[in-house]
């Protein structure tokens, strides 16, 4: 228990963060070099002002036509993503561990809020699973790995809640929780979870073409 926990909350954090950061940098370099071969013209008409405008608009709920067409999906996906990002960064136990390790500390969520937000993440995942199974246009483009990444994202929150409530064997659960977090961080560059990088890249690409060349909105 001691050795595994200390390894997972110590050296392994650096391993995961390095894989995450360098994996994403590698992916960025690979995709831009691909673009140089397949669509070199993008480098002529790419403009940051159009890229940033597109990214910002797609970050506002109901700002795009696509979001207005699917209001339920829009609400679920925004709540899901906000909770998914906020909870790990501001959960009390996480902030305390950062303070112990690196001496840095910031604002924390009240425990009940963090718990509620974790349930919202799991609820969102359940919604996405059902949507992928039931909605024909979603089912048509769904592959096994799409369910797999939903599982990867669900596990840290599921084990986090079980560890918080101390259900089942706590020592096992806390180790599973930390391990699940590492799996998610490491999986980001190698799965569709990399859309945290691909989203701004794609919006920059489409935004520059639509706004700059075609003179139309890309939202």
């Amino acid at each position, binding site marked *: 228990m*001691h050795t595994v*926990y*200390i390894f997972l909350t110590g050296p392994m954090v650096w391993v995961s963060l390095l894989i995450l950061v360098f994996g994403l940098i590698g992916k960025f370099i690979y995709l831009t070099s691909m673009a140089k071969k397949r669509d070199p013209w993008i480098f002529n008409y790419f403009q940051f002002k159009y890229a940033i405008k597109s990214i910002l608009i797609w970050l506002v709920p109901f700002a795009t036509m696509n979001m207005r067409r699917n209001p339920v999906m829009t609400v679920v996906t925004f709540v899901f993503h906000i909770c998914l990002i906020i909870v790990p960064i501001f959960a009390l*136990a996480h902030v305390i561990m950062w*303070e112990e390790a690196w001496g840095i500390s910031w604002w924390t969520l009240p*425990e009940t809020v963090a718990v509620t937000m974790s349930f919202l993440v799991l609820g969102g995942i359940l919604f996405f699973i059902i949507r992928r199974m039931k909605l024909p246009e979603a089912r048509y483009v769904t592959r096994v790995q799409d369910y797999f990444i939903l599982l990867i994202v669900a596990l840290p929150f599921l084990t986090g809640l079980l560890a918080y409530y101390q259900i089942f064997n*706590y020592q096992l659960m*806390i180790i599973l929780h930390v391990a699940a977090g590492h799996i998610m961080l490491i999986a980001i560059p190698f799965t569709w979870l990399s859309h945290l990088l691909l989203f701004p890249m794609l919006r920059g690409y489409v935004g520059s073409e639509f706004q700059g060349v075609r003179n139309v909105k890309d939202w």
Partner: protein
Amino acid sequence: MPKKLAYLMGAIAITVFFLAPALYSQTDMTHVIEDAYPSKERPPSVFPHDEHTYEIAEEFDLDGMSDCYFCHHYDGPDQDHMDMSVGIPCSDCHPVDPVDPDVTALTMAYHELCKGCHIQEKAGPIACGECHVR
């Protein structure tokens, strides 16, 4: 002096003699009871005090230091100070939210003291819910 009164006083004296150490040890202490927190986010930490005093007295060569000093330190900024802080609430020196950045905050003081030793000794709880048991 009537014989009965002498017996009674003798009995009281013996009782006090044997109870006195109990006043200084914390035989019945099972959890850290800390009133300094304005709100408690987690249940109080499990802490059987006397199991620790026994271990510390048995296991560690304290170099002439008092056994209690091991946790009940009172050095502050003056590192040569070797007084003990038995009876002084931890929060008197370690406020929940210290203004001075050099002062260790109460939660960190507890965590460093408990977890630090447990990690070093490879014994005892180190994960959140192992101490803060629901």
